[in-house]
């Protein structure tokens, strides 16, 4: 029988090989993928986030845990889709125009996936038009904008303006983050939310999607 504690530990320890192996066993045993995610994967990633918050984990550990989780989710996602399970929320994420940095954005995307969100990652150097068309097409609950550079942070403002121009601003909550971004800047450009790291991003995203269940 699949050892789910082993899966939990594999995600926590960033052991992708074990995470995939246990997930395969669980699938073979016809365990409910939604339960596997809600009872094992999400708690494991929540613990990863907690360890990051209290500075026992750092970026390398987050990246390793995310890889292990993704290895498992890649196997589970098709089964989830087939069963019609609803995600915690739908997210579109990207690094804004002019900025090619993606590690922070990738970490946020991974933590959100680990939190049960369905994440569409548009990559880096994403134009306002691309964000707008993705919001129109995918109808996400949340749009997450990332920037590392001081000179590209203003692209966040441009993107929010483009959403307004397209008449889509009210249809989606916008969260921003990255090194040059402050809560004041987030407010000033009209974002709905800000988080200072990947772990906090999950908490904020939950508040937007399920204010009643937010941690």
């Amino acid at each position, binding site marked *: 029988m699949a050892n789910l504690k082993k899966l939990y530990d594999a995600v926590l320890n*960033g052991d992708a090989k074990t995470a995939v192996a246990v997930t395969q066993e669980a699938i073979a045993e016809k365990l409910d993928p939604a339960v596997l995610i809600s009872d094992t994967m999400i708690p494991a990633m929540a613990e990863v986030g907690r360890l990051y918050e209290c*500075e*026992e984990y*750092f*970026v*390398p*550990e987050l*990246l*390793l845990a995310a*890889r292990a989780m993704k290895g498992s989710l890649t196997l589970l996602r098709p089964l989830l889709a087939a069963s019609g399970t609803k995600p915690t929320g739908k997210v579109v994420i990207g690094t804004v*125009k*002019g*900025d*090619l*940095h993606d*590690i922070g954005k*990738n970490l946020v995307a991974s933590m959100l996936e680990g939190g049960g969100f369905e994440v569409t990652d548009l990559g880096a*150097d994403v134009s306002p038009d691309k964000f707008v068309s993705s919001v129109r097409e995918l109808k996400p609950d949340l749009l997450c904008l990332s920037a590392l*550079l*001081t*000179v*590209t942070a203003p692209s966040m403002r441009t993107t929010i303006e483009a959403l307004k121009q397209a008449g889509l601003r009210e249809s989606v909550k916008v969260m921003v983050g990255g*090194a*040059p971004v*402050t809560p004041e*800047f987030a407010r000033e450009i009209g974002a709905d939310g800000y988080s*200072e*790291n990947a772990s906090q991003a999950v908490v904020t995203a939950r508040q937007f999607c399920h204010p009643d269940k937010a941690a």
Partner: protein
Amino acid sequence: MANVSAVNTSRQRVLESLHHRQPDRVPIDFGGSATTGIHVSCVAKLRDHFGLVKHPVKVIEPFQMLGEVEDDLKLALGVDVTPVLGPRTMFGFANENWKPWSLNGLEVLVPGNFNVTVAENGDTLIYPEGDLTALPSGRMPKGFHFFDAIIRQNHFDPDHLDSSDNLQEFELLSQADLDDIAAKARAAGTGEYATFASFGGTALGDIALVPAISLKDPRGIRDVAEWYVSTRSRRNYIHQVFSRQVEIAIENLQRIYQRIGNSIDVLFLCGTDFGTQTSSFCSVPTFRELWLPYYKQMCDWIHSHTSWKVFKHSCGSSERFYESFIEAGIDIVNPVQCSATGMDPEYLKSKYGERLVFWGGGVDTQQVLPFGTPQEVREQVLRRCRVFSPGGGFVFNTIHNIQAGTPVENIVAMVDALRSFSA
């Protein structure tokens, strides 16, 4: 002011401060290194503002597109430091055979082997060693201001990693390279400025350098995330890389020292960022296991053979590493990012002011300098000078390079504030 040292030159002013003695005024660096520079577009604007001879500015660091701060601009800004750069830029070509190039409409001068193409989406692509037959190693998004590395991660077998692959770019300097360094150091060392050398080869896992944008065909771990992961999951491999890299670095430093002696004052050791905005990239115990012994080896050699002061750049919330930096033998920290968690200027000065030189911390380049008002810039500059300058141990610099798009009136407000503080 009590106990102010008599100085006759910029160099003496900087040296006084590096030895934690009060100089006649706050020493200033703009343009001394790749982390204390000015974007070429801002250099051009400053030249215009001060009415200096109008000519295209040389891009002396093509990755971040930093402009040359010539002697006339040094004078206008009150700069006390001059750079001594290594034989090649980050893209692997020399700063020679200058040619004109247009950066978003601004005419600048770039090295002869600064060879670029324009991608379908309008981005500018640059090539290692200027070789247009190689894969590009840098990308500047259309309409933006500097390059970022293009990750060229070849397949590798994680079970059979060979550390020599990640040592490709670390070689013993050729005779021609030593001649080049000696000539530059000699020229800089005879002037009145403090000399700030960046020879390369001593940075341990600087994430800007891991992708090896100077190489045409980089081997080993070159992906940024893969490298970060490796500092946790492949520590033996990283130890092997650092261990051999440091052997090569020390041999190069020995050979450089034989040629230039103490004609340089400061050595840029390493730009690896250990801090993030609110936390760090690793724990202090990890730093002490994986980095400290190698920094110490290099610093020990430098301090036992030369009078050079050792400069360590680390962005973000880096205070937690300062005791270990001191133990390793690092003399100077930069950029002193006061906006990051735990980087309060008063705290830093009181706890480390007698043991570390703060080279930076002068004004925030994420918010205040690019987006604040001249008055806000002025107030922050004066506040930082009041905190950091007493007793020396301070060289004024913005917190990292002055970014493209920074209003020239804000830069001028900073310079005016510095002048009024020192008057």
